[in-house]
């Protein structure tokens, strides 16, 4: 890290103001999720007086550890594989966050035919397993080739996670424009073949992309599912290739490849939020919970602070919002501040959530016949457990959600964190944490008790297809629908990634071109959170990047 970043701000100009009238800060950070905490920590570390406001009564946003009858469970996000090591280093989290990466990345029991695919950390081991499938030699070779391609491209994407997406405006030629789009420096390091493939693959569908390497129906579904998980798209939707490529980030502690990552935090994702909050406070940031912001105040196109639901006003020349872009720009600002054009484009931004979370407390570990039994079975079950059969099966599940219906047979991707981190459960009980898709936030008829029960039952039925008897082991179940995400977490549309991911809402046009580089439409307003580059997942990158953009702006202003 550079000395510049740590330099204290110029005296007087941004120092804490006299405490008459409303309380004043250099910057207010909206949202106490992991991105807000990261941003607050970076700003405070740079010497600014920072206030972080969280509407809920606890910090963490969607990175939470909940307790179900004495057993700790990942309430929403359950894996944290892409958390940026450089942020952990910058903020000194080394001692306080411990991550575990099981050797099994994914265990995928087929929902009907009794077979299973296992993806391992070691691609050769995966290929050895694949080669025993029908037409396996070809599949294994295709898998290794794809894995190699995704790792090489992933190494490129690893380098573009940090920093501000380049502007498209400065180029004097289309070559420069393209190079700007593609982040010239890491791009030129790529072999030409990989560079060409990135430019071709970004707009592709994940199913088309993977399908060029292999045609094993189950494996094709499993790998291309990574382009669709958490988003209102199917694996055949164009642009999911970008999500898949991005998810393959490799380098600086990350290791995506074709299998994708499976990493959990000891103590659950809440442990990361806790460590980040401690770090932010350690750098001097002030953090308030139960502090719902109802407006960003502005005068003459420049941010002046925020107003709270309590009526309190807080003065600050800079506001960095990690809330979703629609809440920030449509909810907290008036039309005179944002203008009709931006509002119109934002309203059409895709943010309908389709992902529900089902946490099951199990009185003992269920049997997955396809995994066998004993310790080797337990090793398999330490990975993500993906239950899907074919690309068209996933598409059918997706189709329902386009018309406000939940999938008859949802796709379920589960994790049993208590197998990886036994400290979560004080006894032999287990948590099965399941992503259930597709369950649209705008469900026809609304998310009534009956609808909630129906979705949970359908998800359990899917689990039963690969773990017969699991239904009888459920001691408690907790369901969080997109409607809950919208109401209780404030995410417009109930989208876990704030706005849909994919090539259409990507890089400098995430959430929209013109506000995709962390600077909002008003002076002093910074946008961050999952709705900005590089998107959702527990990476911390949007928080750090936006904070660094603000710090850089201040440094320039000082010159």
């Amino acid at each position: 890290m550079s000395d510049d970043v740590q330099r204290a701000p110029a005296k007087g100009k941004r120092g804490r103001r006299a405490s008459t009238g409303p309380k004043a800060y250099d910057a207010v950070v909206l949202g106490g999720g992991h991105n807000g905490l990261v941003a607050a920590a970076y700003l405070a570390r740079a010497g600014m007086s920072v206030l972080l406001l969280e509407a809920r009564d606890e910090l963490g946003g969607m990175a939470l550890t909940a307790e179900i009858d004495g057993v700790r469970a990942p309430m929403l996000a359950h894996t944290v594989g892409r958390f940026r090591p450089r942020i952990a280093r910058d903020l000194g989290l080394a001692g306080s966050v411990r991550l575990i990466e099981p050797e099994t990345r994914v265990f995928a029991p087929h929902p009907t035919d009794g077979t299973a695919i296992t993806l391992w950390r070691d691609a050769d081991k995966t290929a050895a397993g694949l080669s025993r499938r029908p037409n396996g030699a070809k599949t294994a070779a295709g898998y290794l080739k794809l894995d190699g391609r995704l790792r090489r491209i992933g190494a490129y994407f690893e380098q573009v996670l940090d920093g501000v997406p380049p502007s498209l405006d400065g180029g004097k030629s289309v070559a420069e424009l393209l190079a700007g789009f593609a982040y010239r420096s890491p791009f030129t390091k790529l072999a030409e073949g990989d560079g060409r493939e990135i430019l071709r693959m970004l707009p592709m569908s994940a199913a088309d992309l993977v399908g060029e390497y292999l045609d094993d129906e189950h494996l094709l579904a499993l790998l291309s599912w990574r382009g669709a998980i958490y988003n209102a798209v199917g694996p055949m939707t164009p642009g999911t290739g970008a999500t898949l490529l991005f998810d393959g980030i490799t380098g600086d502690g990350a290791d995506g490849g074709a299998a994708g990552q499976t990493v959990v935090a000891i103590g659950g994702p809440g442990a990361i939020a806790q460590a980040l909050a401690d770090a932010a406070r350690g750098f001097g940031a002030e953090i308030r919970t139960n502090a719902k912001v109802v407006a960003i105040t502005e005068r003459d196109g420049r941010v002046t602070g925020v107003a709270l639901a309590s009526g309190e006003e807080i003065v600050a020349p800079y506001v960095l919002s990690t809330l979703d872009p629609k809440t920030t720009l449509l909810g907290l600002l008036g039309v005179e501040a944002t203008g009709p054009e931006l509002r119109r484009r934002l309203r059409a931004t895709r943010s309908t959530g389709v992902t529900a979370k089902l946490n099951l407390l199990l009185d003992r570990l269920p049997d997955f016949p396809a995994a066998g039994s004993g310790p080797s079975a337990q090793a398999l079950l330490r990975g993500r457990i993906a239950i899907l059969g074919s690309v068209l099966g996933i598409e059918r599940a997706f189709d329902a959600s386009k018309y406000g219906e939940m999938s008859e047979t949802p796709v379920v991707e589960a994790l049993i964190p208590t197998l990886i981190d036994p400290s979560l459960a004080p006894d032999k009980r287990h948590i099965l944490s399941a992503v259930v898709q597709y369950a649209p936030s705008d469900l026809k008829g609304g998310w009534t008790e009956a609808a909630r029960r129906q979705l949970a039952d359908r998800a359990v039925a899917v689990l039963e297809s690969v773990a017969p008897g699991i239904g009888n082991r459920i001691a408690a179940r907790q369901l969080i629908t997109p409607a809950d995400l919208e109401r209780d977490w404030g995410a417009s549309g109930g989208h876990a990634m704030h706005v849909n991911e994919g090539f259409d809402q990507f890089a400098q046009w995430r959430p929209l071109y013109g506000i995709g580089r962390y600077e909002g439409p008003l002076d002093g307003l910074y946008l961050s959170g999952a709705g900005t580059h590089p998107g959702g997942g527990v990476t911390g990158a949007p928080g750090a990047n936006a904070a660094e953009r603000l710090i850089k702006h201040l440094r320039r202003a000082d010159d």
Partner: protein
Amino acid sequence: MAERYDAIVIGGGHNGLTTAAYLAKAGLKTVVLERRSILGGATLTEEAVPGFKFSVASYLVSLLRPQVIRELDLAKHGLQMAPSVGTYTPHWDGYLDRRTDHADNLREIRKWSHRDADNYDDFKQTVTDITRFIRPAIDLPAPDPYGDPMEWLAYAGLAKEFGRLPLRTKGALLDLITGSAYDFLRRWFESDPLIGTMSASGIIGTFLGIKSPGTGMVFLHHYFGEIDGSFREWALPQGGTGAVAAAIAGAARAAGAEIRTDAPVKQVLLDGDRAVGVVLESGEEIKGATVVSAADARHTFLDMLPANSLPGEFETAIRNFKFRGSSAKVNFALDGLPTFSAAPPGVGHLMGTVSISPSPDYMERAYDDAKHGHPSRRPFLDMLIPTLVDPTMAPPGKHVATAFVQYAPHKLAPEHGGWDNIKEQFGDLVVDTISEFAPDFRDKIVGRQVMTPLDLERTIGLTEGNIFQGEILVQQMAFNRPVSGWSRYRTPIRDYWLASSSAHPGGGIMAAPGRLAALEILKSKGAAR
């Protein structure tokens, strides 16, 4: 022994004929070899029902490059085009009828939504600004990201202009290139028939739904055709689209090109790594210094070249080039005009396009069926009655109607037993679909021709029945069409060129690939000299 040509053009569709015309005009001894006994490829007029002439495949012209019309003097060679104006969208609760008069159109739109009418001008202006900015690109070869910097020089002005565009235009352009037609339209509009109908421009010929990202690009492709000053103009060639091919063929012949029909090429002859001629199915060998293929990329590289003559990576890339035809054509001979249940008085609403696209959900569900391997149970239709503009297409008092139908996926689910098995059933479905809005339609039919994607493939030679000789997908456009590194009409085989819609800027009756390929060939000859 046959004589030796300077250039052999494989394929007598509008692109092949265009290439031949330009090469012949430049003094090259040129021959066109067409597999069928009729010229035109997919720009084809045929009397499929006695007395009734149909534009069998392609049916409207909007993209035909003005340079081609001018430089080949197509008017002199008999090309006459009449504007095809307006779009009529029947709906269960009424209709939407847009024609030329702006105030009338706003009134029509206001019937459905005040907001839509209020936003219509802003939408038009945005799309006009975008197409005005991007249109020069379709008359330039695509620059390669790793190519000679000189290739980029032609684009320097475009890049500078991009920087100067207002944010709203830039934003909208990116929205179109990366997003879906539906999401784009939703920024302005809310009413079902307006979004349904306009979104159709995003799916024509493509195996995607209106809500699929990427359809914005297809939408943009269809709006290229706008002629300065007017908004998204379409035209009907007198005598059907075959008349376009006939005019270009006339220009080619006048320039000295020889055109042979019933001359299917079996294989391109190679001498080492260069093309030196072709051998016909008949066994006849024809020698030429340059061989140009106006067939699609799969025929060009996988069917007409000897095995193992291409670099492995290139061949893989061609195999990965997506075709996936998604549309059919059903042509009707009618003994009178159909009466739509909800329509304005007169026949004005039938003069342009009749679009069965009543709502976005209707359109998207049509795609859902196709995705799973079924013809749409309720398909999108784009129907024209050309006889209202060009009465020569049918006997006096009679009419022809041509319906472009989507989705008709080339690859059907096994239970259908293949296209030949369900062809007539599919034709009936189209009749039912039209009759839902015009109950007397079925009684007016005196003949019909169903062109399934399989028919388009077998008859015209369009791989997988794709009307654009390769899907219009973002990843298959510009420098990626058909293969990254090979977008400038050259191929890995020396003296073998690609001039079809599989090359930049893609399909539609544009003649742009044919013209640009010819110019590149001539440039290379000039350089060699």
